[in-house]
């Protein structure tokens, strides 16, 4: 066993570090240190720098305008960007490039690739994801967004929810029900829908922390061309699973980096508040450091398995269960450290980010209280903790599933309600 990166990967790391250094403004202290009004402009500029250096769509093959980076190079890039607190692009890029782009490359028609991939890269098309619905959370396959064929178009009616960055998007990839007469997983299709039309309305959701990172998307006789379906009619579930598989452990080693930084700042906060001598606080901080160490060790184990092709498909469920519970606990430690000061959150907040605040965000009570509140969401979104535990129990250990009550035609199980 050894944990050194291959020489070529280290050479690539050096290249990335010098790219980062030469493309950041002087005295750079992280996005969090910028005024809120300047952050968006910086991310746009940074996206352009990535694109100019062929570092934007690194997981795409070169023939589609991507970076064509190897797995280890993608890992190194993710590590260096995380370390510097820099994004891989805009929030919509994660959806457009990493998820949809790779799905189109794998399953799209030549026409779809030619039409969409260049526009994803140029930023002409800005993507969001339409999966969850008010009636379909953990039971995603129970979704109801209805699509009916009308000539060479699909007519779409219904609602998507928890759509991240929906306000900044102009296209949405969505799973819709095209056939209610068959078993629920089989009646779904994967549609690309332009949002710039009268039948699509986006409304922000104000979350419990007071931010609007998510939106509802309403469809009223919205239309999209028949050629904008990925896969065939009824293939939606398969396409969605392909799409969700594109995380592939490239970020195996970044949790330890970003959470390690957080725990470092938490330790600093304890000193500032004069409670670093308190044995109970020390115990909690030590626990946090131990957990970051465990994430680091597990990350390198996953990286090895990614490179060797020996990884487990359940590995993502372990990761989610681990980091979401950790996020909850250490942000609770933050409020313990703050004490009564947590009751009046002041200073810079977490900017509505799902997990850790931007690098350079001040060590303020508002930032930690925001994060603590967001901790409650962490075990819900992206597959709830309980769903992850089901997957671990069933897929990793072969435990039996619960008896299903949702067999038969979808229209029959929904009619019964």
């Amino acid at each position: 066993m050894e944990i050194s990166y291959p020489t070529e990967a280290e050479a690539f790391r050096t290249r990335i570090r010098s790219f980062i250094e030469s493309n950041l403004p002087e005295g750079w202290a992280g996005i969090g240190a910028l005024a809120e009004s300047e952050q968006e402009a910086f991310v746009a500029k940074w996206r352009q720098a990535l694109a100019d250096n062929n570092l934007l769509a690194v997981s795409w093959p070169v023939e589609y305008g991507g970076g064509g980076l190897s797995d280890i190079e993608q890992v190194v890039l993710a590590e260096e960007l995380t370390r510097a607190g820099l994004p891989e692009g805009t929030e919509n890029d994660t959806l457009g490039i990493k998820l949809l782009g790779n799905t189109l490359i794998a399953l799209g028609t030549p026409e779809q690739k030619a039409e969409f991939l260049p526009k994803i890269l140029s930023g002409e098309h800005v993507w969001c994801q339409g999966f969850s619905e008010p009636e379909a959370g953990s039971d995603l396959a129970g979704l109801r967004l209805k699509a009916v064929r009308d000539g060479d178009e699909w007519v779409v009616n219904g609602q998507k929810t928890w759509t991240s960055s929906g306000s900044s998007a102009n296209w949405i990839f969505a799973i819709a029900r095209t056939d209610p007469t068959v078993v629920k997983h089989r009646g779904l299709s994967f549609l690309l829908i332009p949002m710039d039309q009268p039948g699509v309305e986006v409304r922000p959701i104000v979350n419990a922390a007071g931010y609007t990172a998510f939106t509802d998307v309403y469809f009223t006789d919205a239309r999209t061309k028949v050629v904008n379906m990925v896969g065939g009619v009824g293939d939606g579930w398969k396409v969605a699973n392909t799409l969700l598989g594109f995380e592939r452990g490239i970020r195996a080693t970044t949790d330890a980096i970003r959470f390690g930084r957080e725990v470092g700042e938490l330790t600093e906060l304890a000193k500032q508040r004069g409670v670093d001598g308190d044995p109970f606080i020390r115990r909690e901080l030590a626990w946090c450091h131990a957990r970051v160490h465990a994430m680091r060790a597990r990350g390198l184990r996953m990286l090895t398995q990614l490179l060797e092709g020996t990884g487990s498909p359940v590995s993502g469920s372990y990761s989610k269960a681990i980091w979401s519970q950790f996020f909850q606990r250490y942000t609770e430690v933050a409020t313990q450290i703050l004490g009564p000061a947590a009751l009046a959150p002041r200073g810079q907040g977490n900017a509505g980010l799902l997990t850790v605040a931007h690098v350079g965000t001040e060590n303020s009570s508002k930032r930690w209280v925001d994060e603590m509140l967001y901790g409650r969401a962490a075990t819900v979104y992206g597959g709830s903790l309980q769903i992850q535990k089901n997957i671990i129990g069933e897929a990793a250990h072969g435990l039996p599933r619960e008896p299903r009550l949702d067999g038969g035609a979808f229209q029959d199980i929904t009619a019964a309600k």
Partner: protein
Amino acid sequence: MYFDYDEDQNEFRSVLRQLLAQYADMERVRTVAETGRIDGELWGVLCSEMAAPALHLDEEIGGAGFSLVETAILAQELGRTLAPVPLIATAIATEAITRLGTEAQIDAELGPVLSGERIVTAPFVALADLAVAVHADAAGALTGDLDFVPHAVDADALIVGASLPEGGVGVFLVPTGAAGVAIDEGDSLDLTRAGSPVRLQGAQGELLGGVAADSVRMDRVDAVGRTLLAADMVGAARETLSVAVEYAKIRRQFNRQIGSFQGVKHLCSDASIAIELAHPVADWAAMTYGQDEFAANSVLAKYQASEALTVAASNSIQVHGGMGFTWEAVPHLYFRRAAALAQAYGDANANLQVIYREVATAA
């Protein structure tokens, strides 16, 4: 980058599994455990056929020249079966002898220990911490009480840290048959790794190296103990989880396999998640044997593995229901291992204090 077991190590594990299927099935383990003794026959086989305690030691002193990862694999497999053999205590003893002893002491003591001819044990307590309770006089006579010495009844000698009259800590090899050594035979919490309190009253010991021990070297001896105990706990945790999972598939209530209930399933998943974290941490410690970070990594490994085994063993009893609290069912044996090893090298709070000192302040 290869932070996983290589082909040879996987092969080594499967050979061990075959061997232990023969010598450490649960019935045999329990039969031996009832005597409170070690399985001498199995230990003999492990020493003679698998070079058990010699795996990670250098070839020039009679070792097999592998890494501590191999010994950790063996510790995992022994932990899995709960086989009552003194691997970890022996590894602590050999580390003390080789790192702290004179050449003459190494020559005299190591061979018979590696062959399994002699058993030298050690408490699962940091050497410097032992020295708080044990004191040496100028002639090397030791006095003090040891709360628990594993395998004490079977051991020919034990390793102990003691405060020296001139200051500092000396590490001594004490023959258990010497005058002034009293072993208080009786029950052990961990039935499959039994031991006893030992009272030293002027017992004559041999000072390793002839001088006060270097603290870095003592840390390394302790780190071997913690690292192998972490491996033992990872193996035990995997097995106790696997037993719980199998039971949850077989046992039916409400006309369903109980494992289909989320309340039961998630007990298994929680254990699985804890093991998923603890296992690479334990490996990391074994991988860094002898490096500067080894001691700190070993504390992290022991802490994390103890957490994993505690969750896995507790949840295993819960999954088994009433059956899980019977003497005849297996889960309590793992729970006992968990409860006993939680105290090894300090409990969770003590471990976290060290982690704060070593890691949090260094970060």
